[in-house]
Structures are given as structure tokens and as C-alpha cells.
């Protein structure tokens, strides 16, 4: 139809999908066939087709997280053919389209795997560890009201842009999922460096990085060994530079803060 390649033919695919009842049970890969998949479908629309078929046949549909389907809410999180969010760089699962696959392909679909992300069901995982890390300090401690005029502190455009780029993290967890060490450093550093770059964040920069890193470790994420898979798989292009910024923020904070604990 509109906008599509008129020569693109519908595809038949074999799906190998991870099925797991809940976090306390063992999971396994189950094979499914889907037919007449349009190349213009999104990956999740292809899964919709599978789920509608399963439901009509009286089977249980595959549970997976998704919501906005425009690449910004960070809900979708599928490990497709051995890659976080599938083969296309800079793309969330929901923005991956079936034109990236070919008729007859076998596609393996797994949930994010990490000790800190237990499986809820099938392909849905619990990423609340990310929320707890933000709760540990990913904010500027101001109450509503009583703030100065927005133009009171000029911020160089270059700094504002870099802070913005760090702030575009969607907390999907692809960094953790693709990291051999299951490290959350890219996620944590994006917030730390956004607030460390902006003058508003300077007041709390030491306690913030100390507390957020402590919580990150407590959640059971691994340590960064600068492999770089996180940034390579990040759908919104969060840079490794943020991790370096966090490292120096942390060392500086530990060396100079008044916190003895």
C-alpha cells in the first residue's frame, strides 16, 4: 500500500519465542509460524498477528511490553536474533520494520536477560531497578514554586545540547541486556552527566553520583569494562562519553565530598 515497496511480497516466517509462565518457573523456546507478514509491518505488529492467531486457536498469547510504538516510551524490549532491539542500529523494537527481514527467515525472540531484570512472563521483564536508581538521586532537589526566572542562568548552547543528548535516554534497558557484564553504567551515567553538565545540577553533584552508583551496585548490575556494546545497541545513541563523565564525577566525589560513609 501507500509508501511501501510495491514489489515487496508478504513473508512467511518461523519464530522461536521464549515462553515462561512467571519468574519462578523455567522457560523454554517455542516455535511458531506466521504467514503473510507485510514488509511494512512493524515488528510488534507482526507479534500482534501471532497473538491474534494464538488467541483464536485457544492458546495463550505471548506477553511482551510495549506502549507508544513510536520509539520514545522505552517499554518495548526484545532481544531479536541475538541483538537488543534487533538488527537495525539506533532503533527500538517498535520502530523495527519487517522490511529488514526476508521471506523464510527464522527469528529468535528472547527477553532481556540480567539478574537485575527478572522475567514477569514470556518476554516481559521487571525493570524497576532503574526507577530505584533514579530515586537514589536522579533529580534536582527543588520543590514546586519559588524558582527563579527561566532565563536567569544562561547556559551555553553547547552544554545545553550535550545535556539534552544525555537526557534522551528512554530507559529501555538495551544497554544492560547487551552488556556481557549486565552493567547499567550507560543508563546511570546518562542521568548523572545530564545533571552534572547543567549548572542547576551542580549543587548536588557529589551526593548524586555517590548515591546513584551505590544503588546501582545494590541492584546487582555488573561493573562496566568499557566493552562498548551498550552504546552500540542504544536505540537513542547515548554516548560512552557519559560513562567517562560519571567515572570522574564519582572519583572526584569520593575524594572530596564530606561524606564519610
Amino acid at each position, binding site marked *: 500500500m501507500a509508501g511501501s515497496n510495491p514489489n515487496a511480497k508478504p513473508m512467511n516466517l518461523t519464530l522461536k519465542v521464549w515462553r515462561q509462565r512467571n519468574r519462578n518457573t523455567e522457560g523454554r523456546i517455542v516455535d511458531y509460524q506466521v504467514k503473510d507478514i507485510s514488509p511494512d509491518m512493524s515488528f510488534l505488529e507482526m507479534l500482534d498477528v501471532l497473538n491474534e492467531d494464538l488467541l483464536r486457536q485457544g492458546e495463550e498469547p505471548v506477553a511482551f511490553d510495549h506502549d507508544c*510504538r513510536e520509539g520514545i516510551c522505552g517499554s518495548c524490549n526484545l532481544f531479536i536474533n541475538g541483538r537488543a532491539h534487533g538488527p537495525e542500529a539506533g532503533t527500538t523494537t517498535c520502530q523495527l520494520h519487517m522490511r529488514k527481514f526476508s521471506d523464510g527467515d527464522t527469528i529468535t525472540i528472547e527477553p532481556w536477560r540480567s539478574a537485575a531484570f527478572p522475567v514477569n512472563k514470556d518476554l516481559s521483564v521487571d525493570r524497576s531497578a532503574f*526507577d530505584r536508581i533514579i530515586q537514589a538521586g536522579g533529580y534536582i532537589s527543588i520543590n514546586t514554586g519559588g524558582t527563579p526566572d527561566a532565563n536567569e542562568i544562561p547556559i551555553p548552547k553547547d552544554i545545553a545540547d550535550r545535556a539534552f543528548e544525555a537526557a534522551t535516554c528512554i530507559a529501555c534497558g538495551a544497554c544492560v541486556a547487551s552488556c556481557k557484564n549486565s552493567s547499567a553504567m550507560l543508563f546511570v551515567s546518562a542521568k548523572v552527566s545530564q545533571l552534572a553538565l547543567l549548572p542547576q545540577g551542580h549543587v548536588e553533584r557529589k551526593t548524586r553520583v555517590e548515591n546513584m552508583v551505590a544503588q546501582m551496585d545494590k541492584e546487582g548490575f555488573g561493573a562496566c569494562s568499557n566493552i562498548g556494546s551498550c552504546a552500540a545497541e542504544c536505540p537513542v545513541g547515548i554516548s560512552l562519553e557519559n560513562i567517562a563523565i560519571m567515572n570522574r564525577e564519582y572519583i572526584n566525589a569520593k575524594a572530596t565530598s564530606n561524606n564519610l560513609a
Partner: protein
Amino acid sequence: MILDSKIPEGPLAEKWDKHKFNVKLVNPANKRKYDVIIVGTGLAGASAAASLAELGYNVKAFTYHDSPRRAHSIAAQGGINAAKNYQNDGDSVYRLFYDTIKGGDYRAREANVYRLAQVSVNIIDQCVAQGVPFAREYGGLLANRSFGGAQVSRTFYARGQTGQQLLLGAYSALSRQVAYGKVKLYTRSEMLDLVVVDGQARGIITRNLITGEIEQHAAHAVVLATGGYGNVFYLSTNAKYCNATAAWRAHKKGAFFANPCFTQIHPTCIPVSGDYQSKLTLMSESLRNDGRVWVPASKETAERLRKGEIRVSDIKEEDRDYFLERKYPAFGNLVPRDVASRNAKQMCDEGRGVGGSGLAVFLDFADVIKRNGAEWVSQKYGNLFDMYAKITGENPYEQPMRIYPAVHYTMGGLWVDYNLQTTIPGLYATGECNFSDHGANRLGASALMQGLADGYFVIPYTIGDYLAQTPPKPVTTEHPAFKEAEAGVRARVEKLMSINGTRTPAEFHKALGHIMWEYCGMARNAEGLRHAKTEIQKLRREFWSDLKLTGTDQEMNQMLENAGRVADFLELGELMIDDAYNRNESCGGHFREEYQTPEGEALRDDENFTYVAAWQFNGENQPEILNKEELRFENVKLTQRSYK
């Protein structure tokens, strides 16, 4: 019933200040004795939760997402309006107020809108202090862009991700209060009913979406910040989970539903590509700053283009009809959304649409790319262009985007008074969930403004007025009303699980969406609405006898979740149709074909319809009762909207 909007006396500009003085305050030491439930953690919910917790109230915040940060506010692209007048181009609180009232086609409350314009300036200050990285000029000061329906540049933005950055600001404020123990966060919890005790909202019933457990929660007041109901149409720019269940359950417990037929069709969305389509993706209105909307001037050219006999580049400049620039020289491509959408539909109805289906018009960037270069365009709109390319497989730098209107926002919602309180005492509605500020059409970049205004700067004052009159005694779930509500929820879930028919929730949802789009979409008429009403009633009966679900309700079951939401859409859809049928005029997003000017513009009937239609639930399968809140315009003169 007479609706008391509780608009304060006095001159427009002084109403809010006076009201803030007149509302009762809760003693600071007593605030910790009050519990407030907030349902929804988008802009309106998260900002309210954080602000109320900062004041000292105990907040319980609920979201069906795994994290508050996933709320669909995050997807707002273009920006947020504020009457800062940083550009020195003639903006003022009054002008923002005026533009919003006019943009809403004179169907919004003056006092609410003026307050919105007043607090808009505080929102920007608040967000900047939170570390929201708005776009800046080289001198380090904040940048602005223009949006539809305004002739000043007052929209603050963070590239194409303004909603994301604002939501993350509110989310961070919320997270801070969670860390302090002032907010208790319930994720993956869906509100399935409201509990009313002695006529006052006192709690909610929720379902844990992971374990399936049904839970009772009590509080002194309940705030619904659960967004809009655009997903009634199945295809919309809303997220897949967006639903009306919380608002609809509250409606059935006594909260009036206002102007349900006021839905906004956004002009610039990526067109539908097939039956499998699960949602539509918006291309920010900000693109109309630099993109030019056109279709081929003749039907014949359009047809040849659709058939692939000619290419876009073969169409000469004089054979292109830049219809918005032609018809509205003053505003050009930046006319309000309802006007832009209707014109796009008109062009397609005339057979001049493009794309395979003929249901699309061009949004062309060739001129601006020639003028400023592709690099400049990429700086400004890069993420939107990338998104377009990913979805369509086409490169918008080389050929014009194809766009078509799609359901985007619902101006209607729970009726609230000036305090944002619904007709149930103790139940508040904020953000898109209420009906208050946008009339019959919302201007671009005003949804973010309203959500944050309600949450940061209105509800913290007005809810105190109610709580100050409520004894600070602990509330519990002891009252039989809780058991009763829970039993109702259980019965409904069990009923859904036990039908064991043949059709999936999505099939019913698509069928409903089709009816709504066809008969209650961009253009409506009495006959079609009558037809749609019987169709929906039939569909609803089929739903309750032929629904298919599998699995159990004691575990994560996404199809069950969806079925409950579709069931409510099937009821709300009918009310929308009733409301559209009742409103014998055209205004804003509500276009009745019977009521139009000779030029095809919306024709209002101010004499008979300058009112808010607030619908009152009157029992299952009974017609709802229409209550009217007359709108009084003391400061602006009602005129035919003109953007020419």
C-alpha cells in the same frame, strides 16, 4: 442538576489570585494526616503527586506501566506554550488566553483558560530549575518556535522530544518524593473502579497486572490524571495502553462526562499503510513551520501520481496546490489543527489525495532545504525525519512526506469545576482527563502546558480547600462500599474470562474504531450518527456474548487487560455519538456537515450551544442525562473564527 463551576467573582485577571486567598488551607502539621490517591503518572499525575507530597500530604501514585516514565506524555514532540514574551514579539498572558479561547472555538471557560495562561510562565521556570534541557540560543537564553493558531513565537521545546523531557522532569520530582517516603508508588496497577463513601470519593479498586490480585486502596481524596480517550477510534496517535477505563468507571459512579464529542484530529500523521496497522504516528506540528502542505492541482494529475505513472518531481510548481497558503494567507500552513485536518480531508474527498490509497497530502521541505540546507533541517527536525524514514522506508529529505489526519487528543473529559473537582466531592481530574481548558479544539503545545499547570500550580491549592473541610481522621477500607466495589470488579473480570466466544478483544476494538472514524470522525451528520449508535449497541451485545480470552485472571494477561478497556470504550463511544448528535452546530474538532459556511468552514450556533454538555450516567443501558453549563464570555467577543 445545576452545575456550579465555582468561578470566582471579580475581574478576569484577579480571579485566580483572589481565589488562592479565599480557599481554605490545611495546617502544615495536619497535612501528613491526609492521604491522596493519584491515578496516572504522566505530566498531570506525576507533577501533582510530587507537588502534593512536597506539601506534606501522603500520596499513593498508581500507574499501569512498569515505570511512571512510560506515560504517553513522553511522546509529545513539539513543545510547550508559555506567555513569557522572551521574543519581544507582542506576546502576553492576555494574548495566550485569547489565542486559546479563539483556538478552542469559544467553547472553553474564560476563567480557567486565563489561569492557564497566567501559570504558564511558572511552568517554564519550574522545569528549567528541574534541569529540563530546553533548546537554547547561542547566547545561552531559551529558544522559541512558532505553533499553529498563534502569530507569536511562544513555544519552548527540546528538539522533537519536549514531552519526554518535561515528563522526565516531573518523574524526577516524583522519584525524589518516593525516596523520601512521601509517595508510595504502585506500578503495573490498573484502576478498575472508584469507591464512593457517603457521596465522597474515598478510594479505588485496582488490579495488579503481574499477579492479577484485586486490591482496595483508601484515601481522603482521589485525583484522576489518566489521559484521554482517543483510543476509542482504535487507530490514533495515542499509545496502545491509553484507555478511558478509570475516567469511565468514575463517570458511572457519578462524575459527569463533558463534551465527549470534542476530539482532535491532528493533521500531520503518517498515513495508514495496511489493515494490520496498530497505531498511528504523529509528525510534530512544528514541521508546519517549515514544511509546505500541497496536493496536485488537478484530479487527473493526482490519479496518475497514485498509479505511479508520474513521479512527484514531474509535477510542475504551477500544477501544485498549496491549499492552506491559498485559502488562509494570514496563517498559511500554521492554521489550527482542526482547520488543517478538515482541509486535508476535503482535498482527498475531491480526489486529489496522494499515496497508494489517496488518503494523504504532501508535506514538502524542498524549499527550506534549498534555502537553509539539509544540515539545518536535520538539526531542527532530525529525529522526526529519521522516524518517518524508519516507518515508511522513504527518505523525506529527497521526497515530500505524506501525511494524513489522525485522532490525536480529546478535548472532552470528566467535567470539573474551577477547582478541577468533578461532580463527585473529593474526586479531581487533571490534564487531558478533564475537559476544562481547550474548548472544541486544542492549540498545539497546549496539552503539556495544561497538564503541568494542573499538576504543579492548580491542584496543590484547590485540593487543600477540600481537605481542609475533611476531618483528618485516618481512612480505611473498612466501609462496605469497598467490598461492594471489589465484588463488582471481580464479577466483571470473571464475566470477561467466562464468555469463551470466538472474537478477540482487538477485533471488537477495530470494529468500534471503524464505526467511530466513519461516523464520528472528521465530519459527522445526524443520519450517520443515528446509524452508528445502533451499530455500537449491536457490537456491544456481541462483545459480551462472543469475546474470546485464554489463560487466567490470576496472572499477567494482556488480552484480559485489553478486553476490559475495550468494554468501556464500547460504552463511551455511544456517549460520544449522543453528544455529537445533540450538538447541532459545528465548532472546532466537531464538524457537523449540516452546519457549515458557504466556504466550508465550521458554523457555530452561539445562541443555542454556548454551553458545556455534561452527561450524567443514569443506569446501565439507559440514556444519559444531559446537564448544561452555560458558558459566559465577558472578556472576549464571540466571532466567526478566521485565519484568513
